[in-house]
Structure formats: C-alpha cells, structure tokens
C-alpha cells in the first residue's frame, strides 16, 4: 500500500484546483454533452485540467494552437478547419459515444499556463491523452504528441494517426461537406465562359491563330522554366530576404539556393539577351535607313555584350570559383 499516498498526491496535483472531484464517468458525460452541441470543445485553463485529469476511462485529443493574429501562426490557421471537420464528423458518426474520445482545442490566449508547463515552443501541437483505466487503459498516462513537422496536414492523415492510437474502437470516417458554393460557381463560370466564347468566337479566332501570341506565350514559358520558376513553386522559397544589415539581399548565396525575386531578375536578363538576339537577327537587317541601322547594331550589340557580362558576374556571386568574365564586370 506504499503507492497509494503517492498516487493520491499525483492525482490531486493533476486535478489541480477543483477539489470537488467528479468521477471519470461524470466528467466524460459532461464533456460529451458539450461536444454534442459544439465540437471541438473550446477549452480554457481549468477545463483543460479537468479533461485531462487522471484517472480517466476516455481518450482526449487536444490541439494546442495559437490563432491570434499577433502570433502569425499560419500553420494553426490552416489546420483549424481540418481539425473542426475531423472532430465534427467523428462526433457525429459516433452517436453512442462508443469510441469515448473527446475533441478539444486550447488556444494560447486561454491557456498560457498550460503552454508554459508543457514547455511548448511551437504551435500547433496535437496531444492525444489515452485512457488510464478501463478496457483500453494505456500503460502511461502521458499524452502522445503529434508534431506538424511536415507542414499543414489534412484531416485524413490526422484521422489515421488517431485511429492507429485508439485500436479496437470505432473510427467514424471523415465526411467532407459538399461545397455547394464552389459547385454552383464552377457551373456558372463554365457556362458563362462557353457563352462568352460562342459570342466572341469571331474575335477570338484571329488571336488564337496569331503567331505573335503563340510565340510570346512559348517564349515566356521557356524563360519562366529556365530561370528556375518550378524550383520556387516546389521548394516555396522566400521572395526576397534581408542581408542582415537592414538591406535587401537580391541573390541567395550558394549554388543550390535562390529567391523568388532573384529568378525574376534572371528571367529579365535572359529575356533582354533573347530580345537583343532576335533584334540582331531579324529586325536590324530589315532597317532600310543606313544610319539608323548602324545605330541599331551598336545599341543591340552593346546591350547584348553588357547584359551577358552582368549575367556572368551574377553567376560568379553564386559560384565563386567561376573564372570567366567580360570587361565592364571584372
């Protein structure tokens, strides 16, 4: 019987301030009633302690989040609707409460002390408190933690994670509500555009058949892709970054890095060089005025030379060992 006082003190500590200690069954019933009206339950400091106090014969999944604009937690805001959806469809699908799972959300502004005591540095964090008594009792009363290290998660992923940790209990599937607004707007837009196409067909045809349009589109796509736009898309690089001295750093250091603005600068350089090339090949020989043609040759040739030199110097900042350069940018 040596363990009894220790256990008592622990549970007393955990249950904290409410001395009027309810039994685990009562607690589950009251939270269950709350969650039927609105889920996930918006928790505060005392209700969090009550929900997670031991012994408990139910499980609790609680997201600790920081929705306030002050914290600028993009991930929290992106995950919140998914979390709401998950808890709603779980609670609705589990009418009898057989899974004995309560969903809760604790915002930083409501439970500062909890965040402190858990030593949380980041948000959101999902904690799953397993039951400590009953048929599904876990060995340890400590919560299982789910980290959002892979960016925002969809409800299905979190659902399968929870289901994995609550075996042998019903796992109501996620029911995504049909997005009526999107359906209707898509239909209206597509019908509208078909009508517009039909009406404007005689005017669209020359555009569709114009070589200038298609050549512009192709060249723009090529410039976009060869200046590393897809890399930005996939890696989600910052548009621009500071240089640590209060200024702006236009070019990222290192051969395998780049910023969004940087790729636009490079695309502009390529575009200028291509334009100079096209002008020298196609436009200049078609200028019938002798003097004008001379000026054009100098201008485009000069633009070509200077821009290429600049491009080489930019490339040398990315790859310091690169040995080649053209005169003004040595």
């Amino acid at each position, binding site marked *: 019987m040596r363990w009894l006082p220790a256990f008592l003190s622990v549970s007393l500590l955990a249950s904290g301030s409410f001395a009027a200690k309810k039994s685990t069954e009562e607690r589950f019933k009251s939270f269950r009633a709350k969650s039927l009206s609105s889920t996930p339950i918006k928790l505060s400091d005392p209700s969090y302690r009550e929900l997670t106090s031991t012994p408990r014969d139910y499980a609790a999944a609680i997201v600790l989040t920081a929705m306030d604009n002050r914290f600028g937690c993009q991930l929290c805001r992106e995950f919140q609707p998914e979390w709401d959806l998950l808890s709603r469809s779980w609670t609705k699908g589990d009418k009898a409460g057989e899974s004995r799972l309560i969903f809760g959300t604790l915002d930083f502004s409501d439970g500062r002390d909890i965040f402190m005591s858990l030593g949380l*540095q980041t948000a959101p964090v999902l904690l799953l408190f397993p039951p400590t008594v009953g048929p599904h009792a876990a060995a340890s009363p400590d919560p299982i933690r789910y*980290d959002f*290290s*892979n960016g925002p998660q969809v409800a299905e992923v979190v659902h399968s*994670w929870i289901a*994995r940790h609550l075996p042998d209990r019903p796992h109501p599937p996620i029911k995504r509500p049909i997005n009526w607004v999107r359906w209707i707007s898509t239909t209206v837009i597509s019908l509208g555009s078909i009508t517009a196409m039909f009406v404007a067909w005689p005017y669209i045809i020359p555009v569709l058949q*114009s*070589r*200038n349009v*298609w*050549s512009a589109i*192709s*060249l723009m*796509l*090529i*410039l976009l*892709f*060869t*200046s*590393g736009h*897809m*890399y930005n*898309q*996939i*890696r989600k690089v910052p548009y621009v970054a500071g240089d640590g001295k209060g200024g702006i750093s236009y070019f990222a250091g290192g*051969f*395998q890095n*780049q910023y969004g603005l*940087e*790729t636009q600068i490079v695309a502009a*350089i*390529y*575009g200028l060089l*291509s334009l100079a*090339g*096209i*002008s*020298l*090949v*196609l436009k*200049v*020989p*078609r*200028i*019938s005025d*002798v003097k004008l*043609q*001379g000026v054009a*040759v*100098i201008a485009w*040739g000069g633009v*070509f030379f200077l821009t*290429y030199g600049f*491009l080489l110097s930019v*490339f040398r900042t*990315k790859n310091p*060992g690169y*040995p*080649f350069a*053209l005169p003004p940018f040595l």
Partner: protein
Amino acid sequence: MSAEPIQALVDVGKGKTTRGVLRVIILALIAGASIASRLFSVIRFESIIHEFDPWFNFRATKYLVANGFYNFWDWFDDRTWHPLGRVTGGTLYPGLMVTSGAIYHALRTLTIPVDIRNVCVLLAPGFSGLTAIAAYLLTNEMTVHNSAGLLAAIFMGIAPGYISRSVAGSYDNEAIAIFLLVFTFYLWIKALKQGSMLWGALCALFYGYMVASWGGYAFITCLLPLHAFVLICMGRYSTRLYVSYTTWYALGTLASMQIPFVGFLPVKTSEHMPALGIFGFLQLLAFLDYVRSAIPSRQFQTFLWLFAGGTFAIGLAGLVVATSAGIIAPWSGRFYSLWDTGYAKIHIPIIASVSEHQPTAWPAFFFDLNMLVYLFPVGVYLCFQKLHDEHVFIIVYAVFGSYFAGVMVRLMLTLTPVVCIAGAIAVSSLLDTYLDARSPKPEEQVAESSEKKAPKSGLKSTDKPLVGIYGLWSKSAVVAAMGVYLLLFVMHCTWVTSNAYSSPSVVLASRMPDGSQHIIDDYREAYQWLRQNTKEDAKVMSWWDYGYQIGGMADRPTLVDNNTWNNTHIATVGKAMSSREEVSYPIMRQHEVDYVLVVFGGLLGYSGDDINKFLWMVRIAEGIWPDEVSERAFFTPRGEYKVDAEATETMKNSLMYKMSYYNFNNLFPPGQAIDRMRQARLPEVGPTLSTMEEAFTSENWIIRIYKVKDLDNLGRDHISAAAFDRGLKKKRAPKKKGPRVLRVD
C-alpha cells in the same frame, strides 16, 4: 598572275563535292572533339567505372558476356536484396548491356583484344560522337543552312548538360539513350515530312531500341503524340501525318512490349495513354476525311455532329469504366511527381531522397548550358518564322522539355538536345546575316523593296522586307563579338567538364598544400578488404547508395541497392540504422547480416557521408513504422540536427551514430575530437558498441566496416556481456519477482 591562286582558294569552298568533303571532315572532327572532351577522368585517374548505377550495369554486362544472352534474360540474382533476391533479367533495361556486349564480341571477332571494362568505360564518349552527328541531321531538317547543323553538332558535343551523364566511365543508360532520343526524333521528322512508311518503321525501330535502353523513353511516348495533336489543332492533318504516326505507333508499341520490364505497360498505364488516344483520334480523322470525299457536304455536316458526339460519349464511358475496373493503372509515382510537384515529398520519400529528382535552380541551367540558355528562345522564335511541321516539333519540344528540366534536375538531359538545336539555328542565322560579303546599296534597295513585298510570314518582327547589313564595320563588330561568345562557351564547357563532371566519385582527388594531387582511394580499399577477408556469402548491410558498388567491387551479397524496388526492405535497413542497438540487433540477425558498412566523412570533411544522409533513412523508416521511428526525435528541442554533446539521446543511441563515431575520439587528445564535416566538437566519451565489433576502417576513415557479433556463448544479451568485458561489475539484479499480482483466493 597573283589573282589566280587567290581565286582558286576562294573557289575551293564553292564546289558541291568540296563542300560535302569539308562537311564530313568537320563532322568527324566534331565527333573527335566530343569524345576527347569526355576523357578527363581517364587521363587524371584511370579507366574506371564511376559512381553507383554504372557499377550494376558493369556487373550485368560482365554476366551477359560470360553467360550469354538467354541466361542474362532469365537472370535471377540471389546476391542482392538478401533474402528476397531480384529477378534482374526482367527488371532492367537491357539495351546498354547488349550494346556493349555486341561491341565487345564484334571487336573480338576482328581479333582486337579488348577488355570488357574498357568497352564499358568508353561507350558513353563513343556514343556522344554519334549524338553530335544525329543532332546535325535533325537540325538540317529544320533549316536550309548546313552551318546550323554543324553548329548544333558541336554544341551537342560539348554542352555540359549532356557531358554530365556521358563522361568516360559513366556507364549508365543515358549514355546511349540520348543518342537514341535525338536519332528517333530525326527519323520522326523525316517520316513526317515525307509521309513515308519506311522512315516511320525505322523510327519505330529506334524507338524500340530506346525503350530497351532507358526509362526516359516515356518522354518520346508523350512528345510525339503531343506534336501530332498540336498539328491537328492547327488544322494540319494530312495523310503524311497519318501514315507516319500510325506506322510509328503500331510498330513502336509492339517493339516496346518485347522488353520484359515494359511488358503490357504501353496499353495499361496512363503515361502511355496520350499516344494511344492520338492513334485512335487519327483513325477517326482519316475516316471522316474519307467520308467527306464520298458524300455531299450538307449530309456530311449532320454526320459530323452525330459522329463526334457519339465518339466522345463512348470514349468517356470506356475510360471511366476501365479506370474504375482497375484495368488502366493510375499514374506511377515517379511520373506523377512530375505533374503534382508536392506529391513525392509527402507520399514517396524514397523518390524525394534522390538528389537527381530535385527541382532545378537557375544556376544549374546556366552551368549546364551557358549562353545557349538565352539563345534558345531566339532559336524558338526563329522557328515561328516559317512554322512548318518540323518547326512546330521544335517549339513543342522546347516548352515541354524546359518544364520537365525545371521540375527534375536529371531531365536537363532531355532538354539539352533541343537547346543545342535552337541555339545553333539562332547563331547560324546571326552569322549568315552578318557574314554576307555582299552589302546592299542603299538607293537600289529602296527601289527594289518598294516593288517587291516580302512574303508575309505573320510574325511582327518580319513584316518589313529583308534588306541586309550595310556597314562592313557593323558586320565585323557583331561577328567578332559572336566569336568571343563562342570562344567563351568552349572555355566554359571545358572548365565545367574538367571541374564538375569528371570525378569518378569512387576515387576522390584532393590537393596537398604544395599543390600536388593526392588521391583518396578509401572506397576501393574497403571493398577490396571485403573481397579478400570475408566469406564468399557474407551479407553486407549498408544504405542503398552503396549496394551496387558492394556488389560490383566487393562481390558480396547486399540487403538493399540502388534499384529501389522494395521500399519496405529499404525502410527495414533504415530502421536498423536509426534505432537503438537492442532493436537493431534482432533485425540484423533476422536478415543474416554479417557486416555493416558505413560511410563517414568526419575526419576528412567529406560531405557525402551517411550522417548527412541519415535523416532520409529516418524518414523512410518512419514512413513504414511511424510509431517506432520518429524524425522529430533526432532534432534538438530547438530544431537543430546536431552530432555534438547537444545531440538528442535518440541520435546518440542510434546505430548509425555509434558506428560513425566509434573510437573517433581516440584519434584526438582528450576532449579535442572534432568532426570536420559538421564542424562539431564531439563529447569526450565516445559511444560504445556492444552488438558488433569494428572490423575495418579505411585510411581516411571514409569507410568503416563492422562485424555483427554472433550470439553470446553464455546466453547473455550483448549489452551485459559487453559490460562484463569492460570490467563493470554485474549489477545485482533485484530478485526476479515479476509484477505484483493481487492474490484472489
């Protein structure tokens, strides 16, 4: 008198035969140059197979040469993927091995004594010469100027984007595949231009060869239908297109299905569906074409509408049914990751972990293509000027190819040919304009241009009639500048090849303080040790990167290798590497592992070591066992990946960490151990290993091999046995009581 020799000299270049001879000589020189520029590594190091995948190809080629074609075809390899084995003959692209085997046997028949290794090492440079010639042929189909073809050939020959995968020793599928790619395109254009069944059949033949050689054949499978589709949309359906496309598709698909690895994929998977769809579409168009010629036009209108609606409905229904019934497989992971760029990162870490599958940053484009990267749009624009069928091909290829090259670094290889061709068209048009010796006279030109309108091509910049360049100085300035750029291009290519692409990565080179070269040969040292000192069937566990090399150089069975066909098996190795010894040991026993090989760069500052790749092992293992391995546990609370005293307990207890840093601190004075790769000071007390013992460590500590201990003789577990050996007193275990049980009477 004096004018005659000069006149003769000028006339030399005029005759048709002389030009032909000159062209052949120039092409031969270009082929020679492209071969020569790929020999840096042979001259600097030796004739050796490079990197990882080539070692498997080399091993397979040796098997083919030794055992004949049919045994090769049925090859079941029980020395890889232990204990599963691999149906190697049915899961590889045999084109490369068969090519070098054929060359080997041909040379032997000619009584030229040649080693199969040298055939393999020099195959890629040899084929690059052929690629240059194929680029010449393809470009000649685009323009009337032969100079463009010659420029394309030299660009193709020395562009680093292609050299990166075809230096001597880089014995990989791409070595022959790029030649086949360009040549297939050439034959396609030829077939399309002439509407010739013969050229179409030849195209299908080389397409079949391409399918036998490289998984990238899907690029052709998608590009040709796309070209056909764009032509149809432009209203350019013709019997030429019908004949060439249907010939290519029917014969090419049959040819591709002969490869066991491909099998029925061409009629099942979605990446082959565009080709099939266009094939069907062309049949409909041909049918409509026939009907239009047979019935009056008013009835034809009604017929057309009914026919179009019916076909559409049937096609859609068929597609839905086939997909839902599972007859048509969904997009394969590798291919799908090209479209939905976030897909691989979330779902398939094994694909995301390969550096070749990363997206391309802009410096890589400039590095691999130099000035061609911005001459490329100029050439594409020039293609819009005439816009024949073959020019449409270049434009489609350009857009499509640059998208794929942007998504995946490796596909720079498929972009390079079109960049070279378009760049060559641009440069040759520039040089043709500015090297014309005849200058127009201003006054006569005005008169001429007013009477004769230039044919309208539809491009804005070519509205005005062509005049020509007046001033000699402007001509010479532009030509001189172009000469400088071309010279710079050659220098760039040579520099890139020599510095970036000529390292075998099996042998590393470093500079001594006095500037002399020092060769670091740890890999071969370690593999040789394995070959000499271990049993013939000793299983070696390592991360999959080194599987092919162990198989090729050490000739020992491995658990996983670079043919990443079984993700679970790889994850098992990842779990063994990233778990505690107590967890890893049973895994290794179950897989009969005798030796474990790790690569460690901490002493030398070698970046490609296993600690740097470690997170991928963790991630891949986490994908299969999310409850037992957690990436989060390898990061400090502040989110840093550390190996020094601040490293997390999980990190310090992981097998990989222990094997990497075992005994490392004994090299340094106490407390001074420094990992030169990660610039981290290691804890004073190094890790201890209980379940395995150090067997071999190479000269520079790059490779460390551990022997997995057998079960303890006294039946103890290894942890306590090792503790006993270290002289620690056995802790008196509390009396075995078991958990308290409530006695119920």
